[in-house]
């Protein structure tokens, strides 16, 4: 029996290629997890229902895999029983049945490489056809042979000596691999890049800060555009019918001192919709004009279709680091709805176009200004989830304020360029929650309170469940309709990763990274 299944596994790997059509039709193969958010629409929703509200209390550990490095943030890709993971400048293929490695891959990190403003981490790979795509800290997009881990090609995306890096999972679209960059604390000029999936040749680049002569350039005073940041460090979403790539853009730099960069600082803190063939900007929506609190708009955009004021529309929703939830028309970028989903003290609300109406006394100062949320925001890079079953947008929310300081900052390439800093409120003054928002409006339907502000993403399933993790190591399942806790497990390590679900031998597994360990659970 076991032999037979093994044979099947081997057999299946012969044809286990992942043409783009398989990713587009992800729901036809509920047992696989073929792209960062499982579907291109950014839902992080599993159609599997074997594990459900009735039996989740019996969930048990099936296996554990130990990472070589601490604080793993990876969201695995799972193809036909094989889990593909990444770490800092590394990747591995794991047996979905045991967690044992089939192959591992490493690329040496140059000794002078420095991460500025984040840890040595990698949030996952992408898969397309017969290749696994990995973005490295030192700036290469590497294509590996899916079956052996051998390198097929590698393309230099950026120069880490200028403060650039890559931590996100690439996004594979039709024939191309899209990547974004980190470096918002180092005075980079951000961009989104696409590479030919077969050859590694650059297909296009979209600069997130317009150059001289381009529309939006005048939103940056003087030469500030050259070191204005606007990184793109979280995986985006894709609409294959509209052929639009949706990507979040991060904070302007220096983070906490906006004096030298008067203006709205486009396209920092924005969502951009890019033409998949050319990389040209179709539309943008800026959440936080002239940001001075490090509120990157680097979130997985969630694409869904629903009725707004009686009209069926193609929508995109974002729960932003600035504590507001936004719903936009994803064809045009038109603002449709927005409201706070967590405590915030920086805006009195949004106007009819979605632009914030600023509160007084929210700017960082020499003496310090207490503002909610803190610089890490009301949510950060970890994923939200959208369940077509409940129509809810689930978000891991952080309730924490900070005193923001402003300082002068000189620019030195490849070093910190932040113009101030923050002191977070003590942990017993902070807390967190998983919140279910009505996706069309952002109205809260329920919340489940957490001991501290979370760093873990959310996954919902057709079993009526919502999975997430806490900074104290709890991995848990909630009822997706009510928020009631149905199961929890102490992993022993802080969870700063996104859950995934897949099948092995026909049975549903749930996986989550917790510090140094990747756990797989099943019934």
């Amino acid at each position, binding site marked *: 029996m076991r032999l037979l299944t093994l044979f099947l596994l081997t057999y299946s790997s012969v044809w286990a290629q992942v043409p783009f059509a398989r990713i587009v039709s992800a729901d036809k193969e509920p047992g696989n997890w073929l792209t960062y958010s499982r579907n291109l629409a950014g839902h992080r929703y599993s159609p599997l229902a074997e594990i459900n509200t009735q039996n989740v209390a019996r969930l048990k550990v099936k296996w554990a895999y130990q990472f070589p*490095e*601490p604080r793993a943030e990876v969201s695995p890709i799972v193809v036909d029983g094989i889990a593909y993971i990444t770490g*800092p400048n590394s990747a591995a293929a794991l047996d979905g049945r045991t967690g044992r490695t089939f192959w591992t891959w490493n690329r040496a990190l140059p000794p*002078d490489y*420095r*991460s*500025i*403003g984040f*840890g*040595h981490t990698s949030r996952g790979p992408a898969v397309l056809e017969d290749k696994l795509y990995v973005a490295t800290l030192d700036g290469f997009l590497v294509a590996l042979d899916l079956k052996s881990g051998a390198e097929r090609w590698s393309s230099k995306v950026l120069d880490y000596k200028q403060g650039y890096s890559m931590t996100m999972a690439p996004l594979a679209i039709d024939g191309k691999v899209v990547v974004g960059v980190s470096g918002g*604390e180092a005075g980079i000029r951000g961009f989104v890049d696409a590479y030919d999936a077969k050859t590694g040749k650059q297909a296009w680049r979209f600069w997130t800060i317009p150059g001289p002569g381009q529309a939006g350039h005048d939103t940056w005073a003087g030469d500030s555009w050259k070191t204005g940041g606007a990184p793109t460090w979280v995986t985006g979403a894709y609409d294959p019918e509209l052929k639009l790539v949706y990507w979040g853009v991060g904070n302007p730099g220096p983070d906490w001192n906006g004096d030298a960069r008067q203006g709205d600082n486009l396209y920092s803190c924005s969502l951009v919709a890019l033409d998949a063939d050319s990389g040209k900007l179709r539309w943008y929506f800026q959440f936080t004009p002239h940001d001075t609190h490090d509120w990157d708009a680097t979130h997985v955009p969630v694409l869904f279709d629903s009725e707004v004021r009686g009209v069926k529309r193609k929508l995109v929703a974002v729960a932003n680091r600035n504590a507001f939830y936004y719903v936009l028309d994803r064809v045009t970028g038109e603002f449709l709805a927005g409201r706070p989903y967590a405590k915030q003290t920086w805006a009195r609300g949004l106007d009819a176009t979605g632009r914030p109406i600023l509160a007084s006394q929210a700017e960082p100062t020499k*003496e*310090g200004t*207490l503002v909610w949320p803190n610089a890490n925001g009301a949510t950060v890079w970890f994923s939200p989830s959208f369940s077509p079953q409940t129509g809810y947008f689930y978000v891991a929310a952080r309730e924490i304020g900070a*005193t923001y*300081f402003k*300082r002068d*900052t000189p620019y*030195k390439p*490849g*070093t*910190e360029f*932040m113009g*101030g*800093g*923050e*002191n*977070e409120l003590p942990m*017993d003054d902070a807390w967190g929650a998983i919140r279910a928002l009505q996706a069309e409006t952002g109205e809260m339907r329920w919340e489940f*309170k*957490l*001991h501290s502000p979370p760093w873990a993403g959310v996954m919902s399933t057709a079993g009526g469940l919502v999975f997430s993790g*806490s900074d*104290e*190591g*709890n991995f*848990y399942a909630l009822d997706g309709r009510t928020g009631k*806790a149905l199961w*929890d497990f*102490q992993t022993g390590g802080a969870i700063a990763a996104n859950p995934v679900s897949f099948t092995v031998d026909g049975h549903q597994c749930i996986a989550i990274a917790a510090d140094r360990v990747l756990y797989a659970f099943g019934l």
Partner: protein
Amino acid sequence: MRVLVLTSVSSILLFSAAAGANAAPAADAAAGKIIFEEHCALCHGFDGGGGRGPDLRRPTLSRAADDEALKSLIEGGIPPEMPDGSLFSKEDIANLAAFVRSLGNVPQEKLPGDAARGEALYRLSGCAGCHIHAGEGVGLGPDLTEIGAKRGPGRLRETLRSPAKTIPDGFLLVEAVTQAGETLRGIRLNEDSFTIQIKDMQSRIYSLRKSELRELKKLRNETPMPSYEGLLSAAEMEDLVAFLAAQRGQP
């Protein structure tokens, strides 16, 4: 409030750095502060109080016992989490080290109290009923064996006067009411989103699931430790401070 604290901390730092015989000149620590805010504060907090990185406001840093060790740590970093200081000049590193040292500097000032009399007061005042010192006593409050290396005399004085204002991390008093109506009061040993672990005043340890509690209160302004203001004279208080400040563990 926060602003006030920051200002007073900085002025103490400058003062103590200038007062210490071997300390770097005040100007260096001030230059180090600017580098710290730009390069270190993102992880260690703007005031050195910690965040993703540890709290540096301690007289003794576990990974850097002296100035030389601290300078070489800044230079080499702690891979992969803490970046190295390869972009800094020797002078930058010395300034940065001076500032970091100043965050937890114990003034070299001579304390007015008498440590020997303080030791007798420690025994007479019942401190050992809640604290362990040199292996003796009850482990309800913090171990005081090396308290002089962890807290400056000013902080020790404040704790003796107003202990509720200086509750250290890991010693929050909580009150839990179980579904059965039983009330438990004690020190929170640990807590996550689903469970809490409590030690009561008799050192009994409880592991509780939050779903089985009717109520859970953080008693943030309370501590089992009494104020010694009024219980001890001003001179006795100084003697006790001198004794505690001298407790630095094994050399």
